Structure formats: C-alpha cells, structure tokens
C-alpha cells in the first residue's frame, strides 16, 4: 500500500472511530479512559521509532512527555492558545531536546544510553520542580475553558485531538518504516559499523530518530494539563509513562508500526479496566506480569505470533 493511501485510510479510521464513539458512547467516563489509551498509542509509537527501528532504548519518555505538558502550562499562563498550537510548540520543544540529547548521548551504546536518557528525565524534573512560575513542586491548576471549540464538551474535544495525534503518529511511523530512512535506521540497529560501510550516515540518522521520537512524545504531553486540570511534577514525570512506553512495543512487537499500536491498545485497555474494577495501584504490577509472560511465551510480541507463519509461507 502506498504511503498516501495509508495516510488517507488512517484519517478515515480516525473519523469513523470518533463518529462511532460520539454515537455509541453515552458515558463520558469512556472518553476519559479512551484518551489515556490513545495517549499511550502516541507514546509507544514515538518510543518505537528510536527503540524499535533504531535500537536505542530510551528510559526518558516521561521527560519528553512532561516537556510538552509544561510547555503548555507556560503558554496557558502567558496567552492561552488553542490546543493544536500547544501541541505544535510542545512537539518542537521536545524535538529540540531530543536532538540535544542525541548529540550528548548517542556515542553511548546499549545500557549506557538508557541510563543517559533516564538521567535526562531526572534533570528536567528537577528543573521543573524548582521553577516557581509553573507551580514548582506544589503543582499548578489549569482552568480549562468552559466550552470546547467545535464540540462543546471538553473531553470530547480532547479525545478527538488525541485520536488525530495517534493517527498522525502511526502514519508517520509507517512512512518512516517504508522509506530510505527506515532502511537506514534498520541498518543502524543491526550493525553500525556495517551501516557506515554501506554509506549510511549513522550519526545523522540517529539524530533524526531521537528528534522525531522526542517530538511525538512532547506532542502527546501537550494537552495533558487540560486533561488533568491539576499538574505536578510527580504526575507529569511519572515513571509509569517510561515503563509503559517500553512495555507496549515489547508486548506488541518492535519491528513494525503495528506492534506499538496493538501493545498500547491491549495493555492500555487492561490497565484502565483494572483501575476501575480492581485497584489503581495494580497497573504497574499488571505490566510486570505481562512483560514476563511475553518475554517467555512470545519474545517477538503479538505480531511475532503471527509472523512465523508468514515467513514459512514465503520459504515454502
């Protein structure tokens, strides 16, 4: 399927899902829960661009996510622009931080890179905690407008925004996957020395990857203050974002855009259900159990369960 066809199809799916949700779902709670799942689709897809395609494990998702969220807090206090503008600004800012992180840490490999990204998240968190303008450690209240543009109810609007963002990130991930860039990133992931010898400018590609991945995470975080209406560093920089955005591609499968999507829907939905039916602190325990289960039973994730059959069909 051509990229343009896929993008149109994604847009169509976004519209259909939203229309169905508006017609079929009467309880607003489901929009709140759906927003979180969609947010994880964006985060998992973003993480996978660097982690799955390029082979660099990022533990700093929460940092990029919170950069987007706190950029929105600042803009909200200064001027209060509409959410699409917040998303744009949050994305650009987190993308630039991603680029900077790339320059500083991409000479590290493997576990050292992962530690570097975790350190970055902690540095940003410390900075925000001590920045009084955005509430410091007290946190900040965001009074969102009484009515949303287009739809009236604010949560419907936020749901639509996050749904569109999820569609956008999936389309972007798939375009990368099928492009020259995607081949280059796969080469970097498999063997950097061989990639250089094949003419791949590895440093440049890794920087593109960190910037894109960071930008998407920042975009996912930008609407957060309007969703939670009270934001403090502990919730904005919650380690759950980092853990989930790693676990979802791992459970779904890391080699294609389908993996993070399936993983985020699967794990995100289970977590939301567990929060309501059992206990909200059970979330991360579930992630842990599922990770262990998948590492043992399906090391290539949900898509790996289906791929061996496809491969044997090709070779037969």
């Amino acid at each position, binding site marked *: 399927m051509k990229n343009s066809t896929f993008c149109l199809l994604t847009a169509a799916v976004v519209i259909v899902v939203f229309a169905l949700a508006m017609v079929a779902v009467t309880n607003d709670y489901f929009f709140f829960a759906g927003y979180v799942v969609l947010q994880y689709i964006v985060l998992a897809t973003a993480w996978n661009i660097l982690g799955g395609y390029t082979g660099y494990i990022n533990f700093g998702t929460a940092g990029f996510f919170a950069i987007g969220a706190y950029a929105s807090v600042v803009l909200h206090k200064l001027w209060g622009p509409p959410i699409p503008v917040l998303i744009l600004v949050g994305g650009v800012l987190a993308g630039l931080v991603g680029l900077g992180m790339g320059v500083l840490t991409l000479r590290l490999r493997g576990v050292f890179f992962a530690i570097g990204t975790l350190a970055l998240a902690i540095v940003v968190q410390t900075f925000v905690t001590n920045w009084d303008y955005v509430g410091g450690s007290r946190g900040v209240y965001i009074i969102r407008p009484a009515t949303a543009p287009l739809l009236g109810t604010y949560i419907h609007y936020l749901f639509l925004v996050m749904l569109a963002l999820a569609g956008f990130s999936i389309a972007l991930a798939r375009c990368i996957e099928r492009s020259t860039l995607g081949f280059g990133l796969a080469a970097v992931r498999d063997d950097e020395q061989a990639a*250089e*010898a094949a003419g791949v400018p590895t440093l440049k590609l890794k920087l593109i990857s960190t910037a894109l991945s960071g930008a998407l995470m920042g975009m996912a975080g930008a609407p957060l203050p309007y969703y939670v209406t009270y934001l403090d560093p502990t919730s904005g920089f919650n380690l759950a974002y980092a853990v989930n955005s790693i676990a979802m591609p791992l459970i779904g499968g890391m080699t294609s855009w389908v993996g993070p999507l399936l993983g985020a829907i699967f794990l995100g939905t289970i977590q939301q259900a567990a929060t309501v039916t059992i206990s909200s602190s059970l979330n991360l325990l579930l992630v842990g159990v599922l990770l262990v289960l998948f590492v043992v039973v399906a090391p290539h994730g949900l898509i790996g369960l289906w791929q061996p059959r496809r491969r044997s069909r090709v070779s037969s």
Partner: protein
Amino acid sequence: MSETLLQVRGLSKHFGGFIALDDISLDIKEGERIGLIGPNGSGKSTLVNCLSGALKHDSGSVRFDGNALDGMPAYQRTRLGLARSFQLPKPFRSLTVVQNLHVPLLFTAKHRAGAHLSTAQIDARCEELLHMVALDGKARVRPRDLTQIEMRKLELARAMAAAPKLLIADEAMAGLSHSEVDDILALLVKLNQSGVTVILIEHIMRAVMSFSDRLVCLVAGRKVADGTPREVVHNPDVERAYLGE
C-alpha cells in the same frame, strides 16, 4: 590504467602504548590486484579500518581518487567509491538478503548518479548483484539462514552494491573449503576485470599468490616488503616473520 587511485603517506596508528601501524606508505594504481599479507596481529585489519574510516589514524595522510580522506567519516568514503567487506561478516540481521543490498543502493546511489534510483532500477541492480554472487534463490532469506560461504558472498555483494572503485576484501575466505576459496577467488577476479581495484587481505597463501599482481607484507605494524608475489615471498624479512630465524 596507471593512475594512482589510493595514496597512503606515513600512516601511523597506536592504541595506547601499542604501535599498530608505523609509518606506512603505499601507492595503489587503478585496476591493480593487491594482496596484503602478514602474520596475525601485524596490523592488516587496522590498516583496513584506517583506510575505510572505521578508525581514525594518528598521523600521515590518505588520498583516494583525488580526495583527501583524513578525518572523513566512513560513510562518505563509501560514497566516494571505497568499499570494504568485513573479516567477520556483519549482515543486517533483521533484513532479508535483498534488503541488505537495498541499504547501500539507497544510500550511495544519489551521491553517484546525482539522482534517486527508481524501485525498478533498484530491483534490477539487486538481481544483477545476487546473480553475480550466485545467491539468486536466496533473495528473501534472512542472513541467519545462510551458510558460511553464502554469508561471505552477501558481504561482497553488499560492498559491491555501493559501486566502488576500490574494494577491500578483509579475509573474505577464512574458514572456507578448498573449492569455496576458488569460488570467491573467481568472483574477485571477475570484479577486477570489470574495472574494480581490489585489495585482498588473506592468510591462505595459495589464494593470495594466484590472485595478486603485487604483494604487500606487514610485520608488526611496518611494511617490510612490496613487490611481485615471487619477490615478496622470497624476501628474507618476510621469511623470518613467517618461519622464524
């Protein structure tokens, strides 16, 4: 065919206190078949890594096809036409054999032809390369399902996909059987006849002797001999390095 393609002057490289390459000078003409020999640890692979840009040399200069290579990253050297294969095959394991060839085609073609290749052109070129190394039937196979010699062939095909002027084959035959060595040799001769200058690094003397126009011998980081194969193997320094006093 007498243009100098690669000019190395006073190349040195050390790792801490260990001198891996000591003041190496070397001229390679277009179309030559060079054999590079030397005992284990004599600096052959270090020389290859310095020439291809995987390592940065400490002093001296390297010129290739009219360009100074000093400090240039490896990928730019590949785009200029200096390709290498690795001693231990380094295939892109998550990609199929044909996708392994796509990578150099996609990343060097624009530089060479000044334009992107169309999908049809890429497919045609891949088919040609796979046919050249007799991996026709293996296009959709993953590297882990290849045999040792097929892996070596893939390594050479991937280096050739960058359409190099100079190919450095780093022990492309180590661990292969007698007939497999002949297979790879025939392939390298064919490449050379199509106009590619080849540097062959090899321990298998039978292969080096039959392939090379000229032999260069490194011992302990120094160039001790450079001449026709017959001259070099009878050079007393070379005999001493291989056979002892």
